[in-house]
């Protein structure tokens, strides 16, 4: 399930994408109207708006990976991250805006997984834009009901003795999973450890890579 399949590929192997010839939707029209008004009234300008879009596109799971690696190597930071995820990220210098972050930790006995059944809430100020499958109706509806089956399709087999905690982001909080630190990484630097932390491991649909 996790990956989309493209049935129709171009000769060079890329999926075809339909030309966007259809009329603008209500919300596309609204976005353009509001943006043009903001510019006309001098509240913002096109360069500023583009810079903000670039800043969002530039965010990536690498930011979250640094946070996780620090939590693995700095017990006092781990405590602060679990107590207040937003403040701990700001402390590391990440510009996360108004993001209200809760970090949940995987242990020997607990595996956490994040979903937003109502829409597609995702900690994008820390991890970048959400993967497409995260926004799919299939992931959103099945993860709250059969998380073990969904995780197995991602290649994650959670033993029966481990409790699964599903977190449905229904309101104002966003969530990041602190995956379990892989065995065999004793003495590693935070920088080296961060390379083991994948996007999916911070959603809970994956595990950190093993060295």
């Amino acid at each position, binding site marked *: 399930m996790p990956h989309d399949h493209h049935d129709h590929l171009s000769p060079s192997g890329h999926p075809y994408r339909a030309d966007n010839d259809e009329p603008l939707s209500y919300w596309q029209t609204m976005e353009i109207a509001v943006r043009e008004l903001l510019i006309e009234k001098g509240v913002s300008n096109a360069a500023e708006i583009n810079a903000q879009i670039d800043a969002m596109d530039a965010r990536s799971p690498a930011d979250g990976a640094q946070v996780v690696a620090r939590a693995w190597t700095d017990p006092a930071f781990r405590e602060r991250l679990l107590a207040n995820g937003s403040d701990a990220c700001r402390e590391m210098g990440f510009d996360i805006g108004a993001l209200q972050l809760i970090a949940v930790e995987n242990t020997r006995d607990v595996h956490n997984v994040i979903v937003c*059944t109502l829409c597609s809430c995702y900690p994008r100020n820390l991890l970048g834009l959400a993967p497409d499958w995260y926004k799919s109706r299939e992931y959103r509806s099945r993860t*709250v*009901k059969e998380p*073990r089956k969904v995780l197995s399709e991602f290649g994650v087999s959670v033993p029966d003795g481990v409790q*699964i*905690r*599903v977190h449905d*982001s229904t*309101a104002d*909080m966003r969530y990041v999973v602190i995956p379990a630190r892989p065995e065999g990484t004793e003495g590693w630097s935070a920088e080296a450890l961060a390379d083991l932390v994948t996007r999916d491991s911070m959603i809970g649909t994956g595990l950190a890579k093993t060295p």
Partner: protein
Amino acid sequence: MMPPGHIRTPAYLRGKTGWIERQLGPFGNPEQQAYGLLGDKLTLYRVRFTMAEVWGDQAERPEDTLDAEIYEHWLEPA
């Protein structure tokens, strides 16, 4: 099951019994904010449910849990 308007309490949790995992503090009521209003400040809670409570016999593993954020006006003592 689906009243009109913007609702943040998922239908699959309505009528289910859980326990407070933590209190998150006051947040504007999204049911009012959806209409351009500021929204009354309501206490938001993280509520934890067992999969047995939510899905009954269909639960994949009854002891697994599900947490969701629920505004106070959707909760009553159990």
